[in-house]
């Protein structure tokens, strides 16, 4: 399996570290919303098909990547920097969620 890193181009999967399901939303660190923490830690969509996931190019530029990969065929339909998603926590704050 090749993952096309936006910096480094197509590289073998052994250069990358899987960091898991990218659909989960991490609650604010101070959040006491147990349901939100439980969902973040334990609950998974686990689709058979396109899966939104986070990889790190740990054996290369070390960038964190948001990858959409088909879990049946391993076809990768998109790779982008994950850093755009760091606004998740900020958005929660703006909406007054915990």
């Amino acid at each position, binding site marked *: 399996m090749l993952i096309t890193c936006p910096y480094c181009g197509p590289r073998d999967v052994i250069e990358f570290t899987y960091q898991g399901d990218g659909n989960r939303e991490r609650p604010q660190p101070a959040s006491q919303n147990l349901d939100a923490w439980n969902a973040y830690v334990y*609950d998974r969509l686990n689709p058979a098909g396109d899966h939104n996931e986070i990889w790190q190019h740990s054996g290369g530029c070390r960038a964190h990547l948001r990858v959409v990969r088909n879990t049946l065929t391993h076809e990768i339909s998109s790779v982008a920097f994950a850093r755009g998603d760091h606004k998740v926590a900020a958005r929660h704050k703006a909406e007054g969620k915990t």
Partner: protein
Amino acid sequence: MAEYSAFSLLKNALTGNKDWKPAWRKPAPKASYDVIVIGGGGHGLSTAYYLAKEHGITNVAVLEKGWLGSGNVGRNTTAVRSNYLLPANTRFYEHSMKLWENLSHDLNYNVMFSQRGCLNLAHTPAQLDDFARRGNAMRHLGVDAELMTTAEIARLVPALDVSATARFPIVGGLMQRRAGTARHDAVAWGYARGADRRGVDIIENCEVTGFLRDGDRIIGVTTSRGEIRARKVAVAVAGSTGQVMRLAGIDTMPIESHVLQAFVTESLKPFIDTVLTFGMGHFYMSQSDKGGLVYGGDLEGYNSYAQRGSLPVVDEVMSEMLALFPGLARVRMLRSWGGVCDMSMDGSPIITTGPLPGMYLNCGWCYGGFKATPASGWCFAWTIAKDEPHAFNAPFTLDRFHRGLVIDDKGQGATPRLH
């Protein structure tokens, strides 16, 4: 029930083997049953068998999407053991071990259960201490366990590199003598025949496409072979758990599906007569009766339903094998294959009523579903028949994750990569 005996073998041999009956019928689905079990793998079949045998519930259908035993029951590395640390796991897997010890007689079907032992190798003094702790925990609950020295291990497995210059020198190991291997296909066939002869309908090539509901209650399923109703619908679909539960409107589960590969070499003369596990990586090996070395390693590491593995893991597993057995460098690998494992977030299974009324759930088997086959079916059948769990599976609830009652044998925290 005694269909297979020395007498019947002789009689059929003399009459040209024309009179054997198929081990299970190929019935068309009826409109309704008392219980539907979704999934014709080891666990689904053993559930149906024990429903009929232990609880007298014989109006049961087992629905299998493909053909019988085409999933993980025919893809595993056949190891059977009960060498866990935590009491919930130890009690459950030891119950399974006791069922294994009598399974061939119980089924009148030779499952070739061979108690050749399972040896976990330790490579550091700290790891050996940890094994001693686990061994003591096992013995405390009546399970056999013994620590072995490097010299004893060298006598037991002469091909092993036990030298101080090995990549990861061996300092000892934990042995469970009653552990071993079984013939996985025979387990599927034996349970299928036992269930079938008691009246269970095993319906192959019957894919569940949805659930019939009356309000919240599950009252049956829609399938590729029509609607089938039942008072109780049990789900035992391993790696497909997320997909089937989604059909019931449950979108998230504490489970990820991952691929685990297994390998077999060309046949060798007797090489190793125990199940061996490596302590500095993830590698386990035994030798089949045909002579092939059967072995496996770690998950692919990312979510997958592909039922096939990738080359980086092949590379890793082979290097682990050679770290233990340098002499195997020229042995040829015959086949490799992959199975989809339902990896729970604490490494322990789920056998429970619910989560919807009329539904029963059996999943989260991680690497270890095969050895659990008898107890999984036995406990699941109890749970279905009595609408409450047996003491053996009472800890294996679905809501334990959200209630802080995880059964984390490795003490590693939430990750779908355990065991």
